[in-house]
C-alpha cells in the first residue's frame, strides 16, 4: 500500500505535496496501473491532515489523467499513465546522471552550483522543445 508523507516545513502546500508524491511514484514505477491509492480516510488518519486537502489532491490527479476515482471503491492508478517509463529507461537515465554528477563534483562544483546549472539547462531545453 502506498503511504504518503508530509513535510510541514517545505513551504509547499500540503495538497501539492500529495500530488507530487503520486506523480513521482508513478514515474518511478512504485505505483503501477490498477494500484489503489489510500482511501481519503486512511490518508487522513495516517497524516492527521484535513480530508478536504486529500480530496483536492485526488481531484487534481484525476484531472491530470493519472488516476480515476470509482465511487465506493477508491482511487486507482490509470492503465496507461502518460508519464510512466520503463525500468530500463529509468536505470539508464539515472546512470547517465550519476556519471555527469561525478564529473561536476570532480570539477569542483558544489551542490548549489549543480542545481543552478541543472535548472538553467532544464529551462533552456524546455523552451527549445516548446519552440
Amino acid at each position, binding site marked *: 500500500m502506498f503511504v504518503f508523507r508530509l513535510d510541514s516545513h517545505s*513551504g509547499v502546500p*500540503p495538497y501539492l505535496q500529495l500530488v507530487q508524491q503520486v506523480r513521482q511514484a508513478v514515474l518511478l514505477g512504485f505505483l503501477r496501473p490498477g494500484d489503489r491509492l489510500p482511501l*481519503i*480516510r486512511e490518508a487522513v*488518519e495516517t497524516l492527521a491532515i484535513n480530508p*478536504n486537502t486529500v480530496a483536492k489532491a485526488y481531484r487534481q490527479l484525476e484531472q491530470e489523467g493519472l488516476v480515476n476515482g470509482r465511487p465506493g471503491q477508491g482511487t486507482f492508478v490509470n492503465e496507461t499513465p502518460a508519464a510512466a517509463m520503463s525500468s530500463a529507461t529509468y536505470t539508464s537515465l539515472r546512470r547517465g546522471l550519476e556519471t555527469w554528477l561525478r564529473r561536476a563534483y570532480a570539477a569542483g562544483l558544489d551542490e548549489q552550483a549543480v542545481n543552478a546549472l541543472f535548472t538553467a539547462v532544464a529551462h533552456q531545453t524546455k523552451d527549445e522543445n516548446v519552440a
Partner: protein
Amino acid sequence: MTASDCVLRTDGLGKRYRRTWALRDCTLALPTGRVIALVGPNGAGKSTLLRLTVGLLAPTTGTVEVLGESPTTNTPQVLSRVGFLAQDHPLYRHFTVADLLRFGRSCNLRFDQGLAERRLSQLGIPLDRKAGALSGGQQSQVALALALAKRPDLLVLDEPMASLDPVARLEFLQVLMGAVAADGITVLFSSHVVPELERVCDHLVLLNHSRVTLAGDIETLLTEHRLLVGPRTTTDLDRAGTVVEATHSDRQTTLLVRDGGAPTAPHWQAHPIGLEDLVLAYLRRPAPHGAALPVDVAEVPA
C-alpha cells in the same frame, strides 16, 4: 451564504466583563463542512467567542446563531447537535471511563456509546480505569471520544492540544481528522500554535485585541496576500489601503499587501507568503484607535 450552509453566524457580537470588553463588534459567517481555526494571542477573546457559540455565555451586544438557531434560547435542540470540549479537557477524575460513557449516554439526546467504546479500545484505553489515572494524552482522547459520541454536526474545541506532548497531539489530530472524514463534522477550534494549523485547517478566524482582524478561506487568503520587496520607500505606503505591514531596512522596503495580485511596479519583486508569516503579521498590528483596551484582558477560566 444561506442559513443552511452557515454553521455559525454572529452579528455585532460583544461580551463585556464588568468594564472590560473581551470581545467586540464580532461579525462572522462560518461555512459548514470545514475545519476552522480560531487563532489569537492569550486574552484575545477566543474562549469568550467559543463559550458564546455553545451558549455558556450570553452576549452583551449583538446576536449569535449556531446551525441557524440561538444557542441560549433553543438550548436542547441546538446543543444536541453541538459538541464542546473545554480547555484542558476536563473529566470527572474519580469516574471510570465506562462511568463517563454511561454518564454521557444519560445526559444527551443523541449518544453513540458503542462508537465511543470502539474508538477507545482501538487506542488501547481501558474502560475500567479511573479518568484521573490516565495520561494526559489518554484523557484528551476520552474527552474527544465523549464529544464525538454525540455525533455532533459542529464540534467546538478550546485549545484542545495545548497541554499535550507532540505524540499525543498527532494522535489527537489523527482521530479528529478521521471523524471529519467519516462524518463530515464541522470543527471550530482555538489555538495559538500556528505551524500545525496548515495541514489541518481550511478556514481561519484571527482574533486580536478582542476583535476579528482577519477571517476567510485559508487558500483564498494566501492568494490575496503577497510580499513586495523593493527600494526603500516611506511615502505613499497606504496605496488604496492594501498595505498590511511595512518593514524597512537601509535600502529596502518589504510590504505585506492584500491586493489580489495587482501588477508589480518596476524594481519591485513579489513573493508568496506562508500561513504562519501571514498570521504573525496581522498579530503584530497595533490595536485600532479608540479601542482603549487594557493589555491584560484576563482569559476566561475554563
